């Protein structure tokens, strides 16, 4: 029998069940009960379409369990951590016909639903030694653990579905060519100027009659030209794979039922190639050394009689043509005005103006206080602070006054390099062609620099909550000694009622 948890309820009967910050009943673990393997695959398929399994993987345990009646079901246990995660898992489980529970060790109660927004608590616990006791509003059931299921083995056993839409997808591809086709394919790519890398993988022989290991060429092509896709797809002995995640690729024309990019269980240093038609996957525990395709280009040597090397006889430095930097007024429109320099005398005006500035301006503006005044920068435009000398950013970390141009008209990169300032210094060239530098680290958000520290008063809400909390009554047993009932004395017998003296 389950009980709905009420708002502000603090005491729960189920061991290991607590309340999170939202008041939702939550144990250390979450558990999804699924009736069959195909529902498990459906859950993985739906969940990985929107979310990654990366955060669940460290604690994920998939187990085949058996009820008292002998029915076998599948549990998927994971660290609950927060009600947000549990809500996501529950939505998916509900979609595929699973049920979600929460608990810590053995007793798991139904996770919250629309009928009980704060969750459920077990009214009475089953006295059982079974590995798992589930309490649902429709049933209470105990389960014994049958065996663990390995997620990687399950994913490798799933047959990819036929999906012609993957044939036209762009992006990198893995090509696996049989040993006899490899050299021809490499020369074809080199001739066609297709970039890529190649290695040779070895697989154990298919049967006892094979003489040695099976060798295949594995090519990684960043961008296979569209004109070659059909050829690569239809040539016997060449199989094309589309990477679907780190360390795993699926044959072109097929799609794995689970979004493998969301399942970080394949070693990124290895390679698993999932084939269609029910063929077994090809796996490389560690991808062999890959070489550039161009290294296999045909080698040609010049004749020996030609001069092998032409050596210069001397070098000279170019004559100096340097001229001083000038800043001249310009009629070009102002663009990218993102900084201003406010002299010290105008700082009181900035303080008064701070009360009128909108939040967006305060939030995105940074300020550096120097002995020459304040420098303000705002990537979205500094016009909202109508004070000081405006500057235009012509290069990262380099500003010139708005309405001015520098001469000679060199590129901003050249100008920045000529000034020779370190990367962490922000340079401002003033109208009199004088360069000022401010350390980039000196710029702090304007909103943190604006407010003065206010005295604050601690509130006592936590103390009141602690005082109102009811601590569970925890019975501790101590020894009773050799004669435990020695102090427990019965009442003395009641005096007999007064009787008349015997007759006579």
């Amino acid at each position, binding site marked *: *029998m389950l*009980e*709905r948890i009420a708002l502000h309820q603090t*005491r729960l*009967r189920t*061991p290991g069940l607590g309340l999170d910050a939202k008041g939702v009943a939550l144990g250390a673990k979450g558990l999804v009960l699924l009736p069959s393997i195909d529902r498990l695959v459906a859950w993985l398929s739906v969940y990985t379409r929107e979310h990654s399994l990366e955060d669940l993987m460290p604690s994920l345990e998939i187990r085949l369990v058996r009820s008292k009646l002998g029915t076998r079901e599948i549990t998927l246990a994971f660290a609950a951590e927060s009600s947000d995660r549990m809500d996501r898992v529950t939505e998916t489980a509900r979609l595929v016909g699973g049920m979600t529970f929460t608990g810590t*060790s*053995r007793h798991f109660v139904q996770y919250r639903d629309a009928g009980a927004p704060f969750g459920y608590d077990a*009214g*009475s*616990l089953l*006295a059982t030694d079974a590995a798992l006791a589930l309490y649902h509003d429709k049933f209470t059931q105990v389960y014994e653990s049958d065996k663990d299921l390995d997620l990687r083995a399950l994913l490798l056993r799933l047959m990819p579905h036929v999906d012609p839409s993957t044939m036209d997808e762009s992006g990198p591809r893995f090509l696996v060519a049989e040993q006899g086709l490899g050299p021809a394919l490499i020369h074809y790519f080199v001739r066609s100027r297709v970039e890529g890398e190649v290695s040779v993988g070895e697989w154990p022989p298919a049967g006892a009659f094979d003489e040695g290991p099976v060798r295949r060429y594995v090519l990684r092509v960043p961008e296979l030209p569209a004109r070659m896709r059909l050829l690569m797809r239809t040539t016997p002995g060449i199989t094309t794979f589309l990477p679907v995640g780190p360390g795993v690729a699926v044959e072109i024309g097929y799609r794995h039922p689970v979004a493998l990019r969301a399942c970080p269980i394949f070693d990124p240093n290895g390679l698993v190639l999932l084939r269609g038609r029910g063929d077994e996957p090809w796996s490389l525990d560690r991808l062999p050394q890959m070489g550039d395709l161009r290294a296999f280009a045909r080698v040609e040597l010049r004749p020996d009689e030609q001069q092998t090397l032409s050596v210069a006889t001397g070098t000279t430095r170019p004559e100096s043509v340097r001229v001083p930097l000038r800043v001249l007024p310009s009629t070009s429109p102002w663009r990218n005005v993102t900084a201003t320099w406010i002299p010290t005398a105008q700082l009181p005006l900035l303080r008064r103006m701070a009360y009128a500035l909108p939040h967006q301006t305060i939030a995105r503006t940074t300020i550096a206080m120097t002995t020459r005044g304040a420098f303000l920068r705002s990537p979205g435009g500094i016009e909202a602070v109508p004070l000081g000398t405006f500057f235009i950013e012509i290069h990262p970390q380099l500003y010139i006054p708005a309405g001015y141009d520098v001469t000679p008209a060199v590129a901003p990169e050249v100008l920045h390099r000529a000034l020779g300032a370190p990367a962490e210094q922000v340079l401002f060239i003033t109208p009199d062609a004088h360069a000022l530098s401010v350390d980039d680290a000196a710029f702090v958000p304007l909103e943190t620099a604006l407010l003065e520290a206010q005295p604050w008063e601690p509130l006592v809400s936590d103390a009141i909550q602690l005082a109102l909390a*009811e*601590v*569970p*009554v*925890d*019975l*501790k*047993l*101590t*020894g*009773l*000694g050799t004669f*435990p*009932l*020695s*102090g*427990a*004395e*019965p*009442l*003395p017998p009641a005096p007999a009622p007064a009787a008349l003296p015997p007759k006579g």
Partner: protein
Amino acid sequence: MAKPDVGATAERLFRGFVAPLVIGGAMSPGRPIGPRIALAIGDDRPTTDIDLAAHVQLARVRIARKLTPVDRFEGLRAAEWALVAALHDVVQTAHPDLKGVFRSKAPLKLVNLVDQTLDQIPPPASIGDALSRHTLVSRMFEISRTDTVVSWWLGSSEFRGAQPPERLTKWPKVRRVDVASSARPLMSLPEHGAGIDPDRFELAIRGVLAKSPLTDLATAGRDAPRFAWTAETLALAATRAGRTLAVRALAAQPDERVDEALGRATKELMTQGRWKPAAMALDLLGERAMSWAEGALGAAETSAPTIQAGAAFARAAGSFVARRWIAMHGDCFPADERFAILRALEPASTTAAAKELEELLKIATATLPAPTAR
């Protein structure tokens, strides 16, 4: 035999049992007390820990204020000391060490002593007395023992109500240590290592509840022992103030469970032909139904959930009494409100349980003597 030290026993009882029972925390009951000392403690016995005593009094006020505005309680009276001492001994009957090699009947002997203690405790003399007792034992069903089973590669050991020693849990990976803790609520203690028969233990708990009728009603929705009307609970519900407290105490529990318990208990009274006590119980059900109907006026209409037979009977009986009350005294409501209350009560009056109630009332009418004209 040395003379028992009543003061030391009272101090131990207060620190190790009463204070945790009211405030919460680690409860460490000691050796059984017995009726002679329990009844000798007397009124207003001072305790040495003034801060703890003040904390307990504060917690009692908080428990009482869930039902009625009370500002303070007196110290424990003689009957209250005896009541908590009896509960202390009941809990100790489930102590796994009580039953030994040469004392196999010790749990039974102790529970008989508890009966002697309870026989000497008078029923609450007033509503205030009932409330005062309730503040002491209201959390009795929250008493819970944690049993821990430690298993390692060579064996296992169980620790009941005690922490396993650290040496058993060291090197958990090397020794393959597994620690499993289970909560044992009060009513399940006899089934876990105790020498007391569970039915006898439940009987003793019923005896304690009989001496605190408000607690009996305030925990009516419990699983065990199942609620049944007693002379004490009926006496409490028969008074105006007592009925108010009872309705408030019942309202704090899940409706479904309370209705199930009250309906079943009231039906038992009626099938046994105890019409006078049944009338008192029906009054209480009527008041609950009236309060529910008034609350339902402001709430959105929802479909009626499937309920158990006992709960359906309680609602049908409550609806019957409430409709009758409105027929007699309904002028105190405006016409539209009266109509809305009657409409809210209507569904419960047309169920199968309502027909069953009607049959029982026909029997009652036929059985009871007709009123004589004066």
